[in-house]
């Protein structure tokens, strides 16, 4: 099926901030949702898929080898997320962040 997309179906996650330093990419996202998602599950699945070992904690995932963190804070109708990717090359940092953003945007639609 081919169609034109006017509104992105994953529009409930927006990137609100992006900063690329020498060795670190930081992005902040805002998610609008009715109920909190299982971010731990969503991001760990995405990281496992791209062979990035990780360790989960409540509200936070650590990328092994000091390659960064993903943190989130739940509010009533929103979640604030921050993704810090450290090390690697700049293009790989960007690809990892994009992979995580796709996972965040499309997870609920996939599971619905």
């Amino acid at each position, binding site marked *: 099926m081919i169609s034109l997309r006017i509104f992105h179906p994953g529009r409930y996650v927006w990137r609100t901030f992006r900063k690329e330093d020498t060795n670190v990419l930081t992005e902040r996202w805002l998610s609008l949702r009715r109920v909190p998602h299982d971010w731990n599950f969503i991001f760990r699945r995405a990281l496992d898929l791209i062979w990035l070992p990780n360790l989960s904690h409540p509200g936070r995932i650590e990328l092994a080898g000091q390659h960064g963190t993903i943190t989130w804070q739940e509010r009533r109708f929103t979640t604030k997320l921050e993704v810090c990717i450290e090390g690697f090359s700049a293009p790989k940092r960007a*690809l990892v962040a994009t992979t995580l953003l796709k996972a965040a945007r499309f997870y609920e639609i996939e599971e619905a």
Partner: protein
Amino acid sequence: MSTAKASDSATIAAPPSKVYDFLSEAARATSFIPGLSKISNIKPASAQPGQTWNYEFDWFGVVVKGESKCTRSERPSVHEFQTVTGNTSTWTYEINPDGSNSKLTLSVQYNVPDTAVGRFASRAVFEKMNQDRAHEIVKNIKTMLES
């Protein structure tokens, strides 16, 4: 509707088996194919001829949803699949040893829908965009595996 082809190659500092394992898992494709939003309903889980999955592709605002089917799976040298609904195309990844590295070649044979040509002004522009995208896919696989 007519057909066109986009292709690109790169040498990757990884053995062919690693390159093959990385690109042959259907769900992983969202990490290196720009615009590929979602892969779902993968059956069976491992790459093999006959494996199918659903995809959703956002190509500069044109959304293509459909089903793909793996047609060749010869570890570590060839992985091929077809998008059988949506906009039909055949994607072939060939991986050849190059010393201790791998040479990866991606070829995509695809139909050129008349609607897309209208949207992107000309067939040449449409084909150039697809060629650029093939280049980006190969570059992204190299980036993910090397750095």
